[in-house]
């Protein structure tokens, strides 16, 4: 889906990215094809793909392979968002601007729904993108900090296995913690 829309912008980026120190600078325009579990094909810059530690190690293990990298645990939507994020991070890597980066990260996160975040976390975890995982975890922590217990259950998909009495007792014990909780 995003492969077709992304391709025109990619060509402009390559010129920017070429001076970046990379082990495979010989082929700066090399593209890597990723395949999500729902058979969507993503064509990304090699430098972007190398942000994914999982993909990187895939190529380190078999450097000559030019095949499509299958990502069996990843669906298309969160993957496209992850790729979008990593592209921006690479730009910031080239010319560091902390304030700009923070602003971008904040914007990137605020426009995402809870479900988007929850979907992206396993992807970032599977692809081992440390920076993104850190940003996502902090975002989730900020989101749930002042939320109710029910909200958190829904957020993580956790079932309530307390009996009514047990839960009431826990709530009584920590009554002060239930003050000033945001509306869901």
């Amino acid at each position: 889906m995003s492969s077709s829309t992304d391709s025109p912008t990619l060509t402009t980026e390559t010129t920017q990215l070429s001076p970046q120190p990379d082990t495979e600078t010989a082929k700066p325009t090399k593209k890597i094809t990723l395949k999500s579990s729902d058979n969507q094909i993503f064509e990304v810059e090699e430098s972007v793909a190398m942000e994914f530690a999982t993909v990187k190690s895939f190529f380190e293990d078999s450097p000559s392979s030019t095949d499509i990298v299958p990502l069996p645990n990843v669906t298309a939507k969160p993957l496209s968002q992850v790729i979008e994020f990593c592209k921006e991070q690479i730009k910031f890597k080239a010319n560091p601007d902390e304030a700009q980066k923070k602003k971008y990260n904040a914007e990137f996160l605020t426009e995402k729904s809870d479900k988007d975040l929850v979907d992206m976390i396993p992807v970032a975890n599977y692809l081992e993108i440390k920076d993104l995982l850190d940003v996502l975890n902090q975002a989730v922590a900020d989101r749930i900090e002042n939320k109710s217990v029910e909200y958190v259950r829904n957020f993580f998909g956790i079932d309530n296995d307390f009996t009514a009495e047990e839960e009431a007792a826990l709530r009584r014990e920590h009554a002060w913690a239930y003050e000033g909780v945001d509306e869901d």
Partner: protein
Amino acid sequence: MSSAASTSSSTFTEMSANIPSDIISDILSRLPVKSLSRFKSVSKSMLAFLGNPEFVEQHLKNAKLKNPNLVLKLDSKLFYVEDEEWSKARRLPLPFSLCLENVEISGSCHGILCISDQQCNQDIFLLNPSTGVFKHLPFSGFDFAVAENSFTTMGFGYHQVEGDYKVIRCVYIYDKPFIDIDSYECEARVYSLKADEWKNIGAIPYHLGYKAAIWLGNDFLIWKATRGLGRAGKYLIVSYDMSIEEFKEIPQPIVNYNNELHMEVSVFDGLVSTFYLSKYDEAHIWTMKEYGVKDSWELRFVIKLPERVESYNYIFLKPLVILKNGEILLEAGEKTRILHDPKKDSYRIINPIRGAPRRFLVTPIVGSLVSPFVNKSMAEDLVLDTAIRDWVLIPLTVVMILIGVLRYFVSKLMRSQQNPDVKLVREGQVVIRARNLRAGANFIPAKSFRARRAYFSNEENGLLHVPKGQGQNPQAQMFSDPNMAMDMMKKNLSMIIPQTLTFAWVNFFFSGFVAAKIPFPLTQRFRSMLQNGIDLSTVDVSYVSSRSWYFLNLFGLRGLFSLILGEENELKYDISNAAMDDTQRMMQMSGFGMDPTKEWQIWKGVPIALHFPKELESLGLIVLYKIKIKFIWQECSLPCLNLSAEKDGLDIIQHEWALPKFEQRAEAALKKLIN
């Protein structure tokens, strides 16, 4: 109240269907305690998880990176400010305030407050204000009556090496008129949370100040103290080292302030620091960069007080803590708190805190989940029953040794007498002779060498010549001699059967015991080696399970057997070796058809480390063999009894006469003799 402590046994089962546990753990560790207390009622697994000591530690680590929470104290009331903006306070319910006449904060560390009675500090409580969990310490008896005319001081800190919280209480008895402050009788006691008891550490050679000690964040507690004539004398900085339980004076910075100064001891960034207050509205903060090194004192900040602060008395000015943005929180008496930014040299009075009283004193504290209870993780309180030693450890070892000895004799008995085959012996001798010829070839003249070589390797009747098609490969050789195969089978049985039986026996009677403790700490990597059969991540690695003890014995007794059975026997009959060199041949025989060098390549990868995979139980001892076979290839230096190989060796050898002109020289020598 103690729910956090009682649920410390954790379940690492996946809490959420879509997010892995370690990520949930990471997310939760970023939250303040208030949110976490609320989320305890999310589910049972969450409740257990939040009480897990590992999570508590992870959370504490993150909490230390944030700005501290504040405990506000007004007389005997405490208020707690736990939001990051310091905007609102809540009254801390003190369930124990009935016991105390006066609530005094006597130190804090890791989010736990040490609260005591101002008067003689007899009732001491450890309270985590974030969770509300508290503990009343047992009474610290003293050898003398602590009465009105006494003076007490306290200290509270965390001893990293032991992973223990310590409280120190010192009592000085003012029972005589003042002459020299050192003349007062004194006694100090140290409380250990793990042991849950007080220990007398005797008298202190200093007179500690009334303000409670400050924990440095490592093994040290520091006090302001005096000595000798006291009031007239100089103030000292005294530290208590929790590791060696000793009091020591810390050298002070060389300061040259002419005016009368008021000195206070404090901690900044985990460094010992002092601050000096002058009458001219200035505070100088010094920090000691390297603990105990006099030259490392450094003037860090000079804080001039803004004029707006009217009701300020320089004595009450107190730098509290450096915030994450570099600002310093200063307290100027009970009514004013100032944030000072040393970079911009600016001052601002902090916003009023909703719900807080008009005046109060501030104690910064980390918001943590740490409970003032002994960490109930099994590592700490695992007591090895002496019965386990007597009935598991010792029998197991003895049985292993006896089995080893028994096996040695059994295999000796079962080893059938082999009648040497004349042909084989002859061939062996020929090979040895040929080898000798090869080695000494250069010391005989070319002619002699050629003659000898022809004798060994001529195509008609040379001793080394094997007609085509008659060559025997060792496999066939082995088949041709049933006795040999039998012998091997027997030896193998003597190996496998007792091994299997002992393993079954150990498994049946002794599985699940923690049999021994190694007296030194080990890393987690050894867990699979030492704790086979115990699937508990909380048990410290230095504990050895009974099953692992069996394996350690199996492999580790080799040296002992060589002592008991003699050096040369050891190599052959050692439990592992006896089997291995046969197994290797067996494998060749049974036509595994593997190229030995290839095999060697494969097994090179087998780690020698005693890693016992699950298959061991089902596959029997194959793994052991694999490991052992590795050694065979290393040690395989048996003379190659292959005639044709020897012949080839002889054929290609280049003869080079090592003693040129030897004949002439001999002739000359002989002539000389005759003449």
